[in-house]
């Protein structure tokens, strides 16, 4: 055989390959999987392998050897093909030799361990199916104690995955003891890993074991190290979901209360997340007594990080506690968060303004917004911190749909205007990008009278990035405002940008024209834009003359053959005599660009002679681009 490695698969008629998923149920040890890719093989191996015919072992032998290669990349490759190795070894040897070896390899680099942890989650069939799945526990257990969080998390994820493949008996005999060992481990790494495993075994074990699991979880919630308490707090909600309601009330609530008043704020803030899940699980009548005291306390926590978390989770909390509690408790809490002394908290709360208002009970929504929320929002508009203002600007426009036309005009428009004139560009941008939702509510006339002057002002802003941002919204505005309105108010702006002194603006303006033509059509272009663009061809500034060419490049396709041939082409051809070489070679580039739009007659009779002349230009670049155009347009 020419290549022993490619040969073997065909001969056997099977092609398990590296993608063989365990669920396909291959338990035969005689199959020969694919070789690893991108390897340089020792030459001798090729030769000898081909000679004696038993070539199938070599790729696997190399893979196994490379499990302990000095090069991390090779080890990683081998680990990623672990299923191939296991297939070749067969289930028996995988269990008795490969897994013990892997259990001891925890000294390796993180990336190798991470890959290993992931592989083992899909290994059930490779060790002989669910009956033997517990053989995977030892290597995963040792991976669940390494110092790198990503590796531990992946090991826990794989453990959770294979827990479902354990029979109820195996779960109690093998899996649950592992969870206990981890939960009572000496080092906090193993105890943090245990926290993520309770919820997967709890539903499937006997009530005695359930009681033990609850006890272990309780212990970890009051662990000495904050790492473990944090892990427990972050899994509290998930664990609560699998518990019987009576235990949620008796066990989980007390743990929740304890974690929510932990001495470390890094633990307390995680209890806020758990609060959402717990509140969802409890019947409405229990919420007041069991959850609300803790939530109120969190919303007023001494640490800003905890209050930040409350603000950040506010919409979820609002949904979890329901409309009544929202009205009585969350509204004042939200007001306080909007007025918090820490800017981070105010910004997080400001981000939630729209969502919070949307989700208020319909019967009292408007009253609450008008009398409680809006006053706070008004203050945030002139906040000292730009992140707060910017967060508000990104959602404030959404209030207009909720409040309707009259309220928007009376109360919101002044706020929009103020933000539109904010000194911070990000704030202004956030307002402009949401103009459309206001348009829907108050209509175009209203919008034009109130907001347009401010937009026009921004279009002439001294900072080019602000102008650039406005340009990018022009097609959107044009679509919303209609052609008539656009011509009246915005067209002159769009033309002014074409002669901006910043290239990026001129370029964006060109692109903007193309989009406008796509929206308003060729006829509109012919009447309003093309004359102005072509007029610039006689500008004394060569940069402006070039802009004409760039515009033609962008517009020719949208304007169509007629306009391009009759109006644009003559101008381009005339410019081939420009005294500036940059203009001349851009003429060549333009001709190449608009060539496909022109009819073949014009191409042969008008374009070709000009390009031929340019091809003999004294300037190297002009020559080059003219020749390129000739060959692309096939005029040679």
């Amino acid at each position, binding site marked *: 055989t020419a290549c022993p490695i490619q040969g073997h698969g065909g001969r056997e008629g099977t092609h398990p390959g590296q993608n063989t998923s365990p669920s396909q149920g291959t338990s035969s040890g005689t199959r020969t999987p694919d070789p690893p890719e991108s390897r340089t093989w020792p030459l001798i191996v090729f030769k000898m392998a081909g000679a004696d015919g038993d070539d199938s072992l*070599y790729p696997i*032998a190399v893979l196994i050897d490379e499990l302990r290669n000095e090069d991390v990349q090779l080890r990683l490759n081998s680990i990623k093909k672990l299923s191939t190795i296991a297939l070749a070894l067969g289930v028996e040897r995988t269990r008795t030799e490969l897994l013990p070896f892997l259990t001891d390899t925890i000294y390796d680099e993180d990336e190798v361990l991470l890959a290993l942890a992931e592989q083992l989650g899909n290994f059930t069939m490779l060790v002989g199916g669910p009956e033997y799945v517990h053989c995977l526990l030892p290597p995963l257990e040792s991976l669940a104690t390494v110092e790198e969080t990503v590796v531990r998390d992946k090991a826990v994820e794989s453990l959770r995955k294979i827990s479902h493949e354990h029979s109820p008996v195996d779960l109690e005999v093998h899996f649950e003891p592992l969870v206990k060992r981890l939960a009572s481990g000496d080092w906090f790494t193993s105890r943090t890993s245990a926290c993520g495993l309770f919820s997967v075994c709890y539903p499937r074990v006997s009530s005695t074991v359930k009681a033990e699991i609850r006890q272990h979880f309780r212990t970890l919630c009051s662990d000495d190290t904050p790492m473990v308490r944090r892990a427990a707090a972050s899994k509290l909600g998930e664990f609560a979901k699998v518990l019987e309601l009576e235990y949620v009330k008796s066990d989980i609530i007390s743990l929740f209360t304890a974690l929510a008043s932990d001495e470390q704020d*890094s633990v307390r803030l995680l209890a806020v997340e758990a609060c959402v899940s717990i509140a969802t699980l409890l019947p409405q009548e229990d919420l007041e007594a069991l959850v609300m005291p803790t939530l109120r306390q969190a919303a007023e926590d001494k640490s800003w990080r905890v209050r930040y978390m409350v603000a950040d989770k506010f919409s979820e909390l609002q949904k979890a506690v329901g409309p009544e509690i929202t009205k009585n408790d969350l509204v004042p809490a939200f007001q306080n968060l909007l007025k918090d002394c820490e800017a981070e908290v105010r910004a997080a709360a400001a981000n939630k303004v729209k969502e919070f208002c949307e989700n208020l009970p319909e019967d009292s929504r408007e009253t609450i917004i008008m009398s409680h929320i809006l006053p706070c929002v008004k203050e945030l508009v002139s906040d000292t911190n730009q992140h707060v203002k910017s967060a508000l600007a990104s959602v404030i426009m959404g209030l207009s749909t909720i409040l309707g036309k009259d309220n928007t005009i009376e109360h919101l428009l002044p706020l929009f205007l103020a933000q539109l004139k904010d000194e911070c560009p990000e704030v202004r941008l956030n307002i402009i990008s949401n103009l459309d939702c206001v348009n829907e509510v108050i209509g175009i006339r209203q919008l034009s009278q109130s907001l347009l002057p401010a937009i026009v002002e921004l279009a002439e802003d001294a900072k080019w990035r602000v102008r650039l941002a406005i340009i990018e919204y022009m097609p959107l505005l044009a679509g919303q405002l209609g052609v008539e309105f656009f011509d009246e108010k915005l067209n002159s702006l769009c033309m002014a940008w074409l002669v901006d002194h910043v290239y990026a603006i001129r370029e964006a303006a060109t692109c903007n024209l193309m989009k406008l033509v796509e929206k308003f059509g060729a006829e509109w272009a012919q009447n309003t834009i093309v004359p102005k663009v072509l007029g610039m061809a006689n500008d004394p500034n060569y940069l402006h003359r070039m802009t004409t060419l760039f515009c033609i490049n962008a517009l020719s396709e949208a304007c169509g053959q007629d306009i391009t041939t009759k109006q644009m082409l003559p101008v381009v051809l005339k410019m081939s005599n420009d005294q500036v070489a940059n203009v001349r070679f851009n003429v060549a580039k333009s001709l190449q660009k608009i060539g496909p739009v022109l009819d073949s007659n014009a191409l042969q009779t008008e374009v070709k002679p000009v390009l031929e002349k340019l091809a003999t230009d004294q300037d190297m670049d002009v020559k080059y681009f003219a020749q390129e155009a000739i060959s692309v347009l096939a005029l040679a």
Partner: protein
Amino acid sequence: MAGAGGGSNDVQWCFSQVKGAIDDDVAEADIISTVEFNHSGELLATGDKGGRVVIFQQEQETKGQPHSRGEYNVYSTFQSHEPEFDYLKSLEIEEKINKIRWLPQKNAAQFLLSTNDKTIKLWKISERDKRPEGYNLKEEDGRYRDPSTVTTLRVPVFRPMDLMVEASPRRVFANAHTYHINSISVNSDYETYLSADDLRINLWHLEITDRSFNIVDIKPANMEELTEVITAAEFHPNQCNTLVYSSSKGTIRLCDMRAAALCDKHSKLFEEPEDPSNRSFFSEIISSISDVKFSHNGRYMMTRDYLSVKIWDLNMENRPVETYQVHEYLRSKLCSLYENDCIFDKFECCWNGNDSVVMTGSYNNFFRMFERGHRRDLTLEASRESSKPRAVLKPRKVCAGGKRKKDEISVDSLDFNKKILHTAWHPQDNIIAVATTNNLYIFQDKMN
């Protein structure tokens, strides 16, 4: 000072070990720049000007000698930092290790942070006692096998081997400091730490290297208005939200990270009013704080300035609860100490395991202990002369003036080139590590 005793409960300090070269010719790279016990005291790390970290491990107590504690022997040595050059600023970045801090133990391996002026590194020190054996295609020595002899697959097997200690760099926290890093401190939340330079304090997550949060910034808009710099910073041992930093003006600010994301506004300011009678040209220089350390129980903190050690109760800002003079006899020598730059020496200080005794260094290879409850103090010397095994250290006394008594040392004969800047106390036991220029002395109490 009563008898030969010192420290708590009349400890008799005796020599245990000395590490480092004996010859007087000291290589610059060998100068010890930091000393730190880990949380159990089983390991002792030193850093030096050459960028190396040496870790000593305490041997298990030998059965035949119940009265002696295990000796510290070299466990691991590694090059933590290399000299670098900042091409943008045309500045050399020294490899000198400014600080070492151990992380709370999280698994069988040990972790420490080490820093030079600019870059903080997280090191893992782990043991390996097994190695894989068995290749398919080659012999253990690397020779390729005749592949035709390979007829079955071999899975490698781990076999026991001689214990090997590996130090591997796990994270590099770089590019966050414009000025020189003087302190690092691990938070009691086990997931963050701070690093402080002359003007700023940054907060890091131990697992994230590409982002840190600036929490304190005292840089004035105009650098000509600069009047003070940060000299040291530390987290509270169990309140994860509390940190303190000391300044060159002799003040200590306590910040509560709960109050705001930026801690530019302190919540407490510890400052002792200046004694007008002691006012001199050097007042400001000698009041600069060179080290600040919380007590283990978190109730007190200790600061070291040029001439004294002060203990502050966290609940009392207007003056220290205790002040100990380290070498008051130098007050008359400040002028010459200024001329030879000694006045800018940064002495560190440390607490014993139960916060009853504090220790700090001085000149002439003397170091001082102050027993808090009894208001007793002790001067000891780290020297080759007294380095006989289990020899009890003789207390030293400096004669401030007048007639010199027998055994007293005159101020004028003190050697200012021999200074003890770095000392460490075992977290539980009466074992101390004292760094002279390039030697590390380990002393312990005499066990009877």
